[in-house]
């Protein structure tokens, strides 16, 4: 199905963006959610090690990236709204801004990784950093994939492939992008703040 105008509203099988992406979102949230709960259990079993390692993370970098991703989510929602209202040029502008903020997130996260590696806190340093690298790198890959998906959508949008009656792909890409946002909203407080 390429058009969204005939999709019945509020149907369980046809959520915005399609049911497959929503199943992916639920599975991803469960995966990260379970991993973070396991992290919390480990944190309390080896409290001193985890606390001292957690204090080595920059909360400001984490907070900055949270703001960047939430802003990016807003840009994505605005881009989609503009497509639905047949404002192609506006939609292109907002989608480009979404991609740029996504790239900014990746850049800042990459910078944080380089600091951690330079400090010797790479994978295998201790259990805390094993969790840190596994969870954040897994999320990093998701954002990277999201940027690629959005770039393809931008290219097709510029070619006039999407319009007010054909935007399901953009909606699906948007749901994937918001999923990256939701996962980071869980990762940031648990990895950086809670102890």
């Amino acid at each position, binding site marked *: 199905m390429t058009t969204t105008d005939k999709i019945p509203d*509020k149907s369980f099988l046809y959520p915005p963006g399609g049911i497959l992406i929503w199943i992916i979102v639920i599975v991803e949230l469960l995966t990260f959610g379970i991993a973070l709960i396991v992290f*919390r259990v480990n*944190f309390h079993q080896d409290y001193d090690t985890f606390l001292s390692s957690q204090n080595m993370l920059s909360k400001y970098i984490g907070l900055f990236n949270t703001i960047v991703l939430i802003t990016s989510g807003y840009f994505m929602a605005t881009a989609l709204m503009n497509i639905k209202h047949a404002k192609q040029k506006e939609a292109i502008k907002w989608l480009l801004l979404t991609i740029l903020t996504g790239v900014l997130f990746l850049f800042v996260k990459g910078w944080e990784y380089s600091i951690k590696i330079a400090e010797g806190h790479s994978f295998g340093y201790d259990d805390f950093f094993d969790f840190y690298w596994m969870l954040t790198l897994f999320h990093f890959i998701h954002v990277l994939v999201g940027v690629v998906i959005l770039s393809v959508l931008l290219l097709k949008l510029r070619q006039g492939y999407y319009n007010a009656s054909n935007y399901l792909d953009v909606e699906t890409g948007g749901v994937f992008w918001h999923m990256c946002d*939701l996962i980071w909203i869980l990762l940031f407080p648990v990895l950086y703040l809670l102890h």
Partner: protein
Amino acid sequence: MLFNFWLAEISPITGKWTLTVILFVTLIKFLGVAFRFMDLKNAHKHWKIIFIVFILLFSGLAGLI
């Protein structure tokens, strides 16, 4: 003495409140992004229930552990 009192009595309470505030803000941000940006508000009520139950369960477990 005052410092000891703070350390023994107030600090753990403050810590507990900090945890509650962090998880509450997480919950609000999560639901805000899901409903406003991800269009959960336009999805079937079962999707809404799944998301709300997930974040309540996650916040509860993360707070309790």
